[in-house]
């Protein structure tokens, strides 16, 4: 047992490929915990950022700057009465949120956080991701139908029509990126998520800039379609609160409702990861081939520590700026402890980055590499998550006919054209 546990350390393949079930389980647990924490953080950030966009303060009461609001919300949702409408289809009503959650979390098995930092590297990775994330619509459809009520049913119908239409453009955009992976000596592309990133490394260019502007257009199409796929504003027709109260989850309350929220945010992170992997170089730091001197490697490996140091600094400033009234004493102490925690994490990351330079410390050196990869991947995904909030604050909701027109008459022809042009350029250029 201990032998199989230790034998994987220092390995350069994913636990799935090494056939090590113990580490696969550990990775799954880490990813599950990480995504859950990310969803909570995202929840807080969304409320705060939206409030600031609208010149409000947002949550301020629960903890300093409302930092504990997600915990309070989670507690509230768990304690709330769980209502199942008497005319609802009980079984389907019960299963629907689980389908969405399962689809959203299964996708994470193939997301490459690093060259070996993934649960498994299937050779159909991207196909698997698209397939499983397209199952998410089943959760919404069944939830809408099982509620046996008008608004949810309309929301579910809208949602299924929308997701089926945008999946087409999304798939074609993905295909044009996959085609770019075949620009090598053998002429064979790949569907494996890890090898897609490695292909970008070998070709020395992110697919975003490949055959400019073709890669860029495909990326933009995917970026639009992924917002529609996750039912987020401005494509949140499925829950349009001004028309359908809450759309497909009108009848849901308490824990079940929170499962829908969890699934929605997990799906957002998952599709952002696909975009990052396909077009933005996945786990690669900026200019891995051009700035490949060890000094540059060291410079870039300081970034995780610097990020946490920056967050700690913000928290310290927040502590200093708290009103000195005794009413804020506990909040102040809490924020100070939070800042110290962040500063401690920054310190640890700095130590790992500096000591891990010496390859004699094998464990620390591999930790340093892993932290590097995961940091750049998560940073790129975080940009997308912020964009989701930004879209929601900026754009009004589409009307349903406009939505369908954009999907079928604009995105689909453009993505087909990009696909054909990519094929032509790919044959002619190299």
């Amino acid at each position, binding site marked *: 047992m201990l032998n199989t546990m230790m034998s994987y350390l220092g390995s350069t393949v994913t636990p799935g490929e090494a056939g090590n079930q113990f580490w696969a389980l550990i990775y799954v647990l880490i990813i599950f915990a990480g995504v859950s924490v990310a969803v909570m953080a995202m929840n807080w950030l969304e409320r705060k950022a939206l409030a600031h966009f609208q010149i409000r303060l947002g949550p301020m009461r629960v903890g300093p700057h409302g930092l504990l609001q997600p915990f309070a919300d989670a507690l509230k949702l768990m304690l709330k009465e769980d209502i199942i409408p008497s005319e609802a289809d009980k079984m389907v009503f019960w299963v629907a949120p689980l389908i969405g959650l399962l689809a959203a979390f299964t996708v994470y098995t193939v997301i490459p956080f690093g060259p070996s930092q993934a649960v498994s590297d299937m*050779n159909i990775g991207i196909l698997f991701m*698209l397939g499983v994330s*397209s199952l998410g619509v*089943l959760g919404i459809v069944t939830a809408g139908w099982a509620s046996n009520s008008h608004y949810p049913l309309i929301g579910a*119908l809208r949602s299924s029509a929308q997701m089926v239409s945008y999946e087409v453009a999304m798939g074609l955009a993905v295909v044009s990126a996959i085609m770019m992976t075949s620009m090598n000596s053998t002429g064979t592309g790949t569907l494996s998520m890890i090898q897609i990133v490695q292909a970008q490394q070998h070709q020395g260019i992110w697919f975003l800039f490949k055959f400019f502007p073709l890669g860029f257009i495909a990326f933009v199409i995917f970026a639009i379609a992924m917002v529609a796929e996750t039912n987020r504003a401005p494509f949140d027709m499925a829950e349009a609160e001004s028309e359908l109260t809450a759309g497909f989850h009108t009848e849901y309350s308490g824990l079940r409702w929170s499962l829908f929220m969890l699934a929605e945010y997990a799906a957002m992170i998952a599709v952002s990861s696909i975009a990052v992997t396909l077009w933005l170089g996945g786990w690669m730091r900026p200019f891995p081939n051009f700035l490949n001197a060890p000094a540059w490697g060291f410079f870039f490996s300081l970034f995780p520590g610097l990020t946490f140091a920056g967050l700690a600094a913000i928290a310290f400033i927040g502590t200093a700026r708290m009103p000195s009234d005794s009413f804020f004493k506990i909040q102040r102490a809490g924020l100070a402890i939070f800042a110290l925690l962040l500063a401690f994490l920054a310190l640890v990351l700095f130590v790992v980055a500096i000591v891990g330079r010496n390859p004699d410390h094998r464990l620390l050196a591999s930790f340093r590499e892993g932290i590097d990869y995961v940091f750049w991947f998560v940073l790129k995904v975080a940009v997308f998550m912020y964009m989701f909030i930004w879209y929601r604050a900026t754009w009004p909701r589409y009307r349903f006919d406009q939505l369908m027109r954009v999907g079928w008459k604009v995105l689909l022809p453009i993505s087909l054209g990009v696909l054909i042009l990519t094929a032509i350029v790919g044959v002619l250029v190299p």
Partner: protein
Amino acid sequence: MNPTINMAAAPVATPVFFYGLAAAAIISGLLVITRRNAVHSALALIVTLLSVAGLYLMLYAPFVAGVQIIVYAGGIMVLFLFVIMLVNIERASKERQFNRMWPVGLAASCALLALFLGAFAKGKALLPDRMIPIAEGSNTQEIATQLYGEVLGNGQYRLGQYTFAFEIASLLLLVAILGAVIMTKKKI
């Protein structure tokens, strides 16, 4: 950039998974035909399709599994549900569950079962136990030529090993396309 297939490492295709997936496929398959509620049937059918996808995965055919999930579970079943949700369940559940075609269906499934049992009992003798050697690095065109044969021109052709099966499948598709056209177009 040399993708290596590491089959020697601890196999995931253990009997436990097979029996689990097979049981899920059979039970949900039975649920598909026994539920009166069409939405329940559709959901059971999704479970069947996903279990079959898992079986494909165990046969080291991940691409087929992926396509199964995307096309059937993700695409077609969503459209199915989309249509079924608009059906009046109250009235639909009072209608007869099986139409007069059921003896035909029974006969066909019995024939299929007999075929499966025959293949299981005498499979070694009936089916060739060899694979076509395919050269490393050959492209899809060459593989297709080896498997399904090719047209040489001048009315000549060369048969591959699976030409017959391929043609049967093509015929089935053609019939399905014709059926779709006839059913959707009132006046031809």
